[in-house]
Each structure stands twice: as C-alpha cells, then as structure tokens.
C-alpha cells in the first residue's frame, strides 16, 4: 500500500495518535525534546561566542534582542528559555538513561511505570533547581 505516498499521520501510520501507545509517545517526546535541545545548544554556543566577538548588529543580534524581551524572561536574560531547557534536559536525560536500561534488557516489563517515574523525577528536579535558582536571578526592572 505505497507507504511512501501516505501522509505522516495517516490512519495506518504508527504516528497517528489512534495507533500510538505510551512507549510510542515516549519515543516521540524524546525526539522532539532532542531537536529542541540541539537548537538550544547551538543558540547557547553562538550566544557566548557572540559576546566575545563583540558583535552589536545583524541577524543574530536581532534574535538575541527578541530573547531579551521581557515577554520571554520577565527580568533576567533569557531565563524562561533556560528554564524550559532545564526541564527538557532533565526529562531527555532521565528518559535516555531509561532507554539505555531498556536496550540492556533491564526493566522491559515495567517500561510504563519507569516512564511515569522518569516524568515525575524530571518535574521534581526542575522544581528543585528553579526554587534554588530563582533568588539568584536579577530582579525585574
């Protein structure tokens, strides 16, 4: 049935929500969070290098000006961007450890439970670091 010609979310597709179960959602979330983190990594690298280059105008500076807008960070440089990245890093890392264990054949029967534990621990770590870090952010002006 020429799967190449079908749309990604066709009824017969593995990615159609009606065909997806928990393990598939974990797989999709891991990939989406991975893409977000690559974008974050490249932004993080160029943002720091940009400060060293002393670049003051151009496309890149316009992007960082957008990120410095209070809408995104509420008073501290790109803090919301960073805090979102923190939560996603916590999930992606913990779920990655879970994947390594699953690849080794450990906990395959409990993969649903370990996914929810991963989610809860990721939220707990993010909450803890945010509570720890919030007083250190510069006050909104």
């Amino acid at each position, binding site marked *: 049935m020429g799967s190449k010609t079908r749309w990604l979310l066709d009824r017969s597709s593995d990615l159609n929500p009606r065909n997806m179960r928990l393990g598939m959602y974990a797989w999709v979330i891991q990939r989406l969070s991975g893409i977000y983190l*690559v974008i974050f990594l490249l932004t993080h690298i160029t943002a720091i290098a940009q400060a060293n280059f002393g670049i003051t105008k151009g496309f890149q500076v316009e992007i960082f000006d957008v990120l410095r807008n209070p809408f995104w960070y509420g008073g501290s440089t790109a803090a919301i961007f960073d805090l979102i990245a*923190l939560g996603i*890093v916590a999930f992606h890392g913990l779920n*990655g450890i879970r994947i390594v264990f699953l690849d080794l054949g450990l906990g395959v029967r409990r993969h649903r439970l370990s996914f929810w534990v991963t989610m809860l621990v990721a939220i707990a770590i993010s909450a803890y670091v945010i509570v720890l*870090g919030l007083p250190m952010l510069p006050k909104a002006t």
Partner: protein
Amino acid sequence: MKQQKIWRSVFLWLLQRISAALLVVLLGVHLWASNFATDWASLLRAGIDVPLLLIALVHGLNGVRTIVLDFGMGAQARKFVSVSLWMLGFAAFLFGMYGLWPLLFPG
C-alpha cells in the same frame, strides 16, 4: 548492505549511548559550576567545558542524523545529510571554542 556500513551503524548507536551517559554527568557538573559557583568553579568549568562541547555536539547532531534518516532517503541524500551535519558541527565547535577562550586562557 556492506559489512563495514553495518558496523558503522552499530558504532554510532553505541556512541550515542556512551555519550548520553557522559553528558548526564558532565552537564550536571556544568550546570552546578556555572550557576552555583564556588571559588574553584571556573577551574572546574575550564576542565570540563571543552569535552562537554565536543560530546554534546556529537550526541546532538548524531541524534539529528538519526531522526532525519528515519524518514528514509537514498544513499546520496544520506551522504549529503551526514556531510552537512559534520560541517555544522565543526563550525559550532569553533564558535564554542571562541566562546570558551577567556575561560580557558584568562588574562
């Protein structure tokens, strides 16, 4: 598929797992050292940030390659994706080293 190509896929799969384990540790140290700084935090960061940069780029771009190749494409397109990601990674590594320079060689 040629035997050599199969082993390369196995190697990349294993590399993704090993770099994942290293990243969990290195990223934890990196976040702690850069945000909850102590006297020797910059020394610690100077030690781990270059390997972290390298491993994060390898893991991230290899992950992008995995995702893109999962959509299914011909040998030439796969080669194009791989070469593009190598160039992107090399450029990002140079940018990263430039950003880390004052940390590595203060003064």
